[in-house]
């Protein structure tokens, strides 16, 4: 019989976060964990995609840095994830703000673009609007 604590953890909304900056990963994890979400961080797109293939629970939301790893691997990753996991909701974080739009314009309602640095309140609000309460 599962313990109540374990059940609560398993019921929490799961958020995957990909960013090659360890400080950003720590900051985001602290913000969203504080709001009751379960956050799993990855330093690379390949690490995240591998985790999906390893049978881990599918995240409720993916927060993806646009310029992660080499060049614009985040943009390539968006295309891959959207193609293979069309139902996965995403928030794309970018330092470039509106300047990234000529290179990338998501057309689905399940994806948001947010500018770095993110205010904790703004990030929480965006997560809430996409996945609901923890």
């Amino acid at each position, binding site marked *: 019989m599962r313990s109540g604590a374990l059940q609560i953890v398993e019921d929490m909304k799961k958020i995957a976060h990909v960013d090659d*900056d360890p*400080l950003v990963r720590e900051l985001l994890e602290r913000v969203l964990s504080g709001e009751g979400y379960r956050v799993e961080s990855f330093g690379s797109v390949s690490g995240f995609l591998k985790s999906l293939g390893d049978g881990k629970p599918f995240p409720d939301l993916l927060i993806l840095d646009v*310029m992660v790893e080499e060049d614009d691997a985040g943009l390539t990753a968006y295309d891959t994830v959207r193609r293979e996991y069309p139902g996965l909701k995403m928030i794309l974080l970018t*330092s470039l703000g*509106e*300047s990234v739009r000529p290179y990338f314009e998501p057309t689905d309602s399940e994806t948001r673009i947010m500018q770095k*640095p993110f205010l904790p309140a703004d990030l929480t609000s965006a997560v809430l609007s996409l996945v609901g309460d923890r």
Partner: protein
Amino acid sequence: MPDPESIEFFWDGDTEKPVPGPGAGHISDEVLRRNAHWFMRLRWIVAVLCSLYSLLSLSFPDLLHMAGLSAAVVWPAIIAAILIPANVVFGRLLGKSPRTDASLSPYLIVWLQIILDLACLTVVVHFVGSIGTPGPYLYLLHVALACVFFTASASLAVTALSCFLYIATVILERSGVIEPSSLLWSPATLDLFTSGQPTLIQVVSVCLLLFLVWYLVSRLSIAIREREHELMQAQERIRSAQEQKDRHALKMTHQLKSPLDTIRSGIAMIRGETRWEIPESFQDLLGTMEERARVMGELILDVLRLAQLSFDQVGTEHFRGIELHELVSRCITEVQPSAQRRGISILPELSRVTVRGIPQQLSFLAGNLLSNAVTYSNEGGTVRVRCGMEQGWTGFTVEDEGIGISPEKVRRIFDEFYRAKEAVEHNPFSTGIGLSIVRQVARIHRIRIRIDSAPGRGTRFTVVFPGESDNSGAGIS
């Protein structure tokens, strides 16, 4: 342990060597197919002329005699009857447009056309008159077209074939195998066949002229094709360089801005989590650090935007219809938080109006003007924004009651990094690039901007879209 691997790098300064053009060597199927349509047009013209001549001969033979021409009904009709269906068949084989795939090789189809054309042309030359008439010079049309549209070797083959057919026609006429003919209604014309020297002179002259035309026109065509190829390569290099520059700017901006974003996120976290434990002086220090990092980040983004706009080769073909009132409304929403922090009211009067442009760039323009209006307003002030069509112009105005600009400084405010002394005193933290971005967007969209301002009394920016311009005021173009 394995021996360390030695790798040598060398960067050749001239990495962009031009690729040789097609020159006299090769023309692609696509180009052949396109060029063959020119021969089809010539064939239609010849078919129509032959048909008309046949009809005229049938209906008004006396008219032709008066013009010094002999009537001919049968052979022009036969030529037209051959050329018209041939054109239809060739058209289907080549496809309805140059881009449609054909089942036969375009090269084979083109040569079939050339052989048929020269055969029909030889018949026309025979009946028009192979000696003493302008008839043989009709071959020049084919030779010239072949030089322009085909390779030098192919056009030489057309020239040689034309000469061969013409000489063969004259020989057959001279030997009596076929009766000489002429459209020029003059017995003297046929007498030319009885004397050998004029005949020889004309044949040699025609053939020499055909080869001379081939030489000159084919060389000219080769030169033009080489220039076209070099131009296309240059355009491709420019496009590729532009793309590389954009990507480089994007990467550089990200590399410069990311550390600042991390610092700002960290400061926000510290202030958010421990605000009750940090002395107020430290809070102020953190606030100053955050503000400086914010301005640095904005400067980096503004430099990127300005670089993108400065080298932008976007033409009006990339413009699309924009609901200007909606765009301005979105920009107002974005500046509302900073306006509210300083107690500044933004009063919009937005009428529905549509303009053409690039939405992102026009957002930069409107956003910068609104942001400046809020920044340089005094606390508790008002910013009025109007949008629509009035007094013969389409656009919007942004008007504040802030610090204003002195007349001698107005003309410099669009210079990069220029900031008037009063502006610096009012707001030390500004990138100084915002209005340079406005200028670039205005240049791309051919927008006129009028500025009405006085120190201490505020500033009004009037943005006028092309088509309905306001001719008064100190506008910039």
